[in-house]
């Protein structure tokens, strides 16, 4: 499964780094490194909704506060 987080300037200012860090942590904690391919990408053209995240091409708007919820509800349910 491909999980991409926008690290473009706008999302970066909205906390994409914290989102990435949390996701990395959650992936490691749940031992999902083999299953989830986490990567950074630049600008998805939806800066208003940042931090922009895609899960196998489906778009999600995530913030550092909602990252954990997002992981549990959206990511885990797909496994």
């Amino acid at each position: 499964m491909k999980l991409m987080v926008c690290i473009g300037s706008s999302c970066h200012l909205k906390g994409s780094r914290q989102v990435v860090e949390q996701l990395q942590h959650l992936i490691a904690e749940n031992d999902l490194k083999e299953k989830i391919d986490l990567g950074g990408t630049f600008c998805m053209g939806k800066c208003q909704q940042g931090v922009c995240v895609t899960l196998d091409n489906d778009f999600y708007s995530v913030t550092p506060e909602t990252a954990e919820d997002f992981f549990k509800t959206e990511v885990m349910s797909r496994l």
Partner: protein
Amino acid sequence: MRKFDTKVQYLKYKVLREVARMAWNDELFDKALDIPKIIVPGKTPTMRCCVYKERAILNERVKIAMGGDKTNPNVIEVIDIACDECPMGGYEVTDACRGCLAHRCEDVCKRGAITFDHHQKAHIDKSKCVECGQCAKVCPYSAIMDFKRPCVKSCKVKAISMNEDKAAEIDNSKCISCGACVYQCPFGAITDKSFILNVIDLLKKSEQNQKYRVYAVVAPSISSQFIYAKLGQVITGIKELGFHAVVEAALGADMVANEECKELAEKGFLTSSCCPAFVDYVQKQFPDLAPYISHNLSPMATIAQYIKKGDPTSKIVFIGPCTAKKMEFQKETVHPYVDSVITFEELQALFDSKDLDITTLSETALDNASYYGRIFARSGGLSDAVAQGLKENGLDHFDLKAVACDGIEACRMALLKASKRVLDGNFIEGMACTGGCIGGAGCLTHGEKNKAEVDRYGREALEKTITDALKQL
């Protein structure tokens, strides 16, 4: 507002702007031949002997703006008919010699090359003179002048000579495409080929980034350019041209610094690989040291590789101060990642070809890289970043002795010493341009304040350390 240092740059810009304007409108192939007359209308010459010569030269400039001579692999090209065939006699005594009694010139000349005629005026015996310039320095009347061609003087790798027609000729086996001659030739007879048409084509065929996305990777030296506008407005301007996103090459620099310090600690001696002209120089003039060139790709290629990993169909255009990057992106190791390269001069031409006044635009944030990645743009920055990288990677025990070489002459000295194993240092930061990238030939302006601008841009980075910047990747 003054955008360029010289009128040569301004002329080159006008050609690029007209070529780009027509290319956007798909009119180039019908109207390219009209460009010289658009730039030089009327019958009064302002640059050369007559408007016809001016237009003939402009025709050559149009060709170079459209990609230049495909049979010449070098991106730096001489426009034969634009070369003014400057005198190149070396040191000569001028009429200002008053025939004094002191004869300081004679005393200082170790070769005995100075003689005097019966008016006591000095003459230089060219068979003895070694062009050391001491006589010129001591003459109280500054009567001795160096008649060396500006291109030859600027070319520190001695790649420029004179062909049988007395026009300048570039030896591609020596040339490192640094662009020093491009910036220095007062007649604009040496110039860098442009890839603006490729870039316009990439942008148009992307159909507003629907078919594939086009990313602009900007060099950190951009902070010292376009100073008539705010940096955020320049970024918006780049997006207005049709780029999907603007990414800092400085983030690639962070990635490079993080790897380069580990490589250095492992190997014990290294030269940098960021400056393509420097890398080319080492390979051409010091092949014995080539194995010590860092195996890292340049920051440009590193960040491009990263973008393509996440977005495999994307196209990447590097925008920077550098003519040598136009060579680098064509290398087998780099071409898979970087699709084209343009300079700041060419970016200005692209803005104006779309009548984009960037000072009226809103600002777009540009953030990702750390302070250290950003200061790569000036001499000494890379060394600072490697020192920081060693610290952040817990490699403090490695005793870094960086030699930051500012300009190709300084690089030559350090490389000579290194090849004789007498260099007091274990890391050579090689920058072909004086001052580092901010002295690049593709810069709009080369000012005293540029270094301060880069440092300020560095300090504005939200990411204070290299690790901070890399954590997001």
